[in-house]
């Protein structure tokens, strides 16, 4: 029996402008000043991980670096803090892409959770080494919420690729 790649039914090729639009939209969500509210996920990390898993040949470390820098600027973090973490995240998700895509969205979320968590751990370590105060354990809730969001995200971000190529008015389906 041939193994079925359940999560990858035949889709239209992704449009790069859509990838970058969603990344910028995630950046926008990251810029919303929620202060020190706990459990706010890192949207850019989530969307970046998603595209790195879906399109490892097209999106990767470079995009992670650029969007990391933009996040650093917007949230007033140390310059390079998010860039460093996102570069590692992009690399890890690119490498994991072949494996992760075999699973259902829920199982994929379980794969993404440690990635998001380690991204935060990297940032905490970098800032603690630089002498910042430890913000408290509540900040790690963000990655759990992020992993939960993976499941709806999986459908929303793939929506444009579900469209049929040739619209045929007479076709029954």
């Amino acid at each position, binding site marked *: 029996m041939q193994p079925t790649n359940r999560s990858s039914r035949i889709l*239209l*090729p992704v*449009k790069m402008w859509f990838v970058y639009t969603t990344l*910028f939209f995630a*950046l*926008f*969500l*990251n*810029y*919303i*000043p*929620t*202060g*020190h509210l706990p459990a706010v996920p890192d949207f850019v990390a989530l969307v970046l991980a998603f595209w790195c898993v879906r399109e490892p*040949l097209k999106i*990767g*470390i*470079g995009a*992670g*670096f650029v969007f*990391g*820098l*933009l996040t650093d*600027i*917007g*949230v*007033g*973090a*140390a*310059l*390079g*803090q998010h*860039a*460093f973490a996102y*570069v*590692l995240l992009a*690399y890890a998700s*690119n*490498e994991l892409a072949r494996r992760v895509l075999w699973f259902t969205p829920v199982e994929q979320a379980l794969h993404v959770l440690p990635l998001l968590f380690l991204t935060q751990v990297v940032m905490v370590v*970098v*800032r603690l080494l*630089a*002498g*910042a*105060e430890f*913000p*408290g354990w509540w*900040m790690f809730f963000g990655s759990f919420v992020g992993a939960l969001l993976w499941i709806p995200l999986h459908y929303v971000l793939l929506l444009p690729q579900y469209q049929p*190529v040739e619209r045929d008015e007479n076709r029954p389906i």
Partner: protein
Amino acid sequence: MVGHSPPPFFKRGPAPLAKLVFFVLVSLGLLVSDLNLRYLDAFRQGLSVLAYPMQMAAATPADFVRNASDYFASLVRLQIENKELKRQQLQGAERLLRLDQIEQENRHLRELLEVRERQKVNSVVAEIMYTAKDPFSRKVILDKGTQAGIEAGQAVVDNVGVVGQITRVFPMQSELTLLTDKDQAIPVMVVRNGLRAVLFGAGNGLMELRYLAANADVQPGDKVVTSGLDGVFQQGLPVATVARVERDQAQAFARIPCLPAAGVEQFSHVLVLGQRANVLPRPPEVEVINKGKGRKSRARE
């Protein structure tokens, strides 16, 4: 079909690992030069121009929520606030009337004594837009920037005392580091006995008087004000109150946590004080010249 090109099998650019190493090195370089050497402020300013429109757009919902809650504030609360403000103004008016006269007198006396005049500062009222999202520091964003004449390093006060210091300035906004931030320090003086010390942010909404000997004359409840030695903060602005004093014989220094005087983490409008114009000149440097038996002589002035 449209857009169905084969994936690039053979030409894929540099190997992923090489790319990873390159970008990791670049971001570590950025981190070190930003955190330790502070080389990148111009670079950050350039990028912030790009990010600014998006930041403004993202801040709008927060703005809306804040304004809406103001709008629906209950009548009772406003009446209480109004009464309180009237009372404060009356109290202040009486003191202001005397202040004018006392200032005149003070200037006159200072002229007589030929003491340097205490300079007045011009200041800018700014509103706090939101708390910066970085969970590792305590910073807030003000709605005025270089266009309102704000510069990095200026002191910020509210109606009760010192709040913090401007650390970064952008064209339309500026970043205020609160006194409770772990990297923030301010030279202070204990009012009761004039003991000088340095007050550091402790991070958890408190501050700490550090490097005071274990037997230093500090008591719980002592008021702490700026000493003005730094040339940034005006002298005599209230900063904090000593919460308790922990003297441990094993330690060389006493541990003295302090409560901030101003509502350092809950306020909406603040005053950005202008730079002090005429800071006292630094004392002349003493140059040591070793001539035979190490005779010291003042070379410069």
